[in-house]
């Protein structure tokens, strides 16, 4: 990569071994990634074959497991649907590796923004704390979260499959309306950008409905049908929601949820999947269980045998 004062292959090599990169290296990599992402549209068009990955949430060993199962970069093309950080123990290593892979193979790796790629959310759910703990200051967290502002919001595969982190928005009927969003900012609480990373399907409904939380939407069967018709797509592919089976297909195969963090938070006992779209556009869920290293590197936060005995009161 021209103008980058670091050896990306060496960085990737180190990250595969779960070694941290120095803060100045992270800073340079994030700066370069911003330049690259800035040129991407809010709707990036790509062609299959591609393997689509849902939420990872810092579960680094499970990311390695995905590469072992689905193939390493650049032999396999990857589309990641967001939520790389928070919750798991290795958010820094996870996002460092993904960003290096994106820089090294920009046309073979695509990263979409999830609701956790935000300053506000990462302060509450672990990434900030992890950065400070591993680097002694919040510098790395600033580099990464500034870079998050540049991540694209959606990807279309083969002009046929619409991919987004959360779901649809009542403000968006055509993908042209996504293209005009000013995305280079913190994720706002309201508006189409928030909806794309936030909303959830509700299979019992037809239209949009307000969440009981007082902010956010759910979208129903007719909304999905209309959106696909208007844009001449056949399928919506999203992440954002935990499912025990690792994936869920709704609305007569018009929408899939792909979830890629097995045994989420090291205690949910759920399966995970990646969705492989072959060169003809056919979809196949590759389901997998948690990586064996999770147990070796401690952690089963829902331990079945050796619970940490505690004199609680």
């Amino acid at each position, binding site marked *: 990569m021209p103008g980058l004062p670091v050896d990306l292959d060496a960085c990737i090599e180190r990250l595969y071994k779960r070694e941290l990169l120095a803060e100045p290296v992270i800073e340079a990599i994030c700066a370069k990634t911003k330049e690259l992402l800035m040129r991407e549209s809010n709707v990036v068009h790509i062609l299959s074959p591609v393997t689509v990955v849902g939420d990872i949430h810092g579960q680094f060993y499970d990311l390695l497991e995905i590469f072992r199962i689905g193939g390493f970069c650049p032999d396999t093309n990857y589309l990641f649907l967001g939520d790389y950080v928070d919750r798991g123990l290795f958010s820094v290593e996870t996002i460092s590796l993904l960003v290096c892979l994106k820089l090294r193979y920009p046309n073979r790796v695509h990263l979409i923004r999830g*609701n*956790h790629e935000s300053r*506000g*959310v990462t*302060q*509450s*759910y*672990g990434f*900030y*704390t992890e950065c*400070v703990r591993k680097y002694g200051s919040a510098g790395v967290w600033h580099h990464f979260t500034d870079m998050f502002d540049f991540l694209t919001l959606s990807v279309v595969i083969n002009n046929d499959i619409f991919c987004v982190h959360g779901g649809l928005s*009542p*403000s968006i009927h055509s993908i042209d309306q996504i293209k005009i969003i000013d995305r280079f900012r913190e994720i706002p*609480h*309201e*508006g189409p950008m928030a909806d794309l990373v*936030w909303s959830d399907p*509700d299979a019992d*409904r037809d*239209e*949009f*409905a*307000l*969440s*009981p*939380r*007082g*902010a*956010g*939407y*759910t979208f129903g069967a007719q909304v999905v049908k209309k959106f696909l018709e208007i844009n001449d797509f056949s399928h919506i592919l999203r992440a954002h*929601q*935990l*499912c*025990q*089976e690792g994936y*869920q297909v709704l609305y007569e195969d018009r929408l899939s949820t792909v979830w890629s963090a097995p045994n*989420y*938070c090291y*205690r*949910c*006992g*759920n399966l995970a999947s990646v969705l492989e779209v072959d060169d003809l556009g056919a979809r196949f869920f590759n389901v997998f269980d948690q990586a064996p290293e999770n147990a070796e590197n401690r952690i089963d936060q*829902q331990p*079945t*045998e050796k*619970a*940490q*005995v*505690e*004199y*609680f*009161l």
Partner: protein
Amino acid sequence: MSSSSMPPPPPGGPLTAKDVQAVMPSAVDAGKSVTVAGFKVTTRKLPILNATEIEEMTEKLGIAPPEMIFGNNVVAIEKVGSGEETPWKIEFHALGALDLVDKTGSDMLKVAYSAAWQKQRERMHEGIKEVVKPFDWTYSTNYKGTLSPGAKQFEATQEQIPLDKLRRPDPILFFDDVMLYEDELADNGMSILSVKVRVMPARLLLLARFYMRLDDVVFRIRDTRVFVEFAEGTVIREYQEREDSYENVKKNFPPYREDVPAIMRDANQMTEYLPVRSTVTEKLVL
């Protein structure tokens, strides 16, 4: 005194094999249990519910369960060997706890930015008036456990759980920590219900702790403790609510602490920042 036909062991006396029968994971329920002096404690930890199970639970409850729903997990305390047909039993499970969540939405909390969000929305999409069935989506519960049908009921008492006895470093024969449910409140905080239990030679303590943080709005802890003194057959249950506004709590955080986000994720640390609002203590003797 105990109505048990089995004589209780002398308090603090040496344990015999008969007193302690630990059963490690059985294939049937992936659970484990211990029986000490006629009290059997069972815990079971299984994966979160699958789509079919979630549908069933949604139907039973009338509300959507939390994001992480450990619907097959359970912690139970049971009096055994008393010769009664239906032994006294108290259980803690997600279904029981969630059944007590307000399903009318009468006292609904809203996320901090709700007002701004609603205003913006009204401007843009006046057509969307339908709210997904309103309910207390913070999953706040005043769950005190589920008693088996026909079981002896608790009665109000002035007696307190004897903390001095629980502070003793008695050997812990059995310990477990069981999640019942957890939700991130769509990144607006967290809501979590888990149950811990520890069994010592002469007594046991169970703590079912509900912790909820709604960012920029409120902190809430609801604790149910069940204490059993084996020799006397006494069971004391204490239910305690702690709560304060986000604003008040934040004022009390020491300014030099850099790990405030980590503290706010830890219910145990948060107890010292939240004042007790109410306590109810009950007792029964088996």
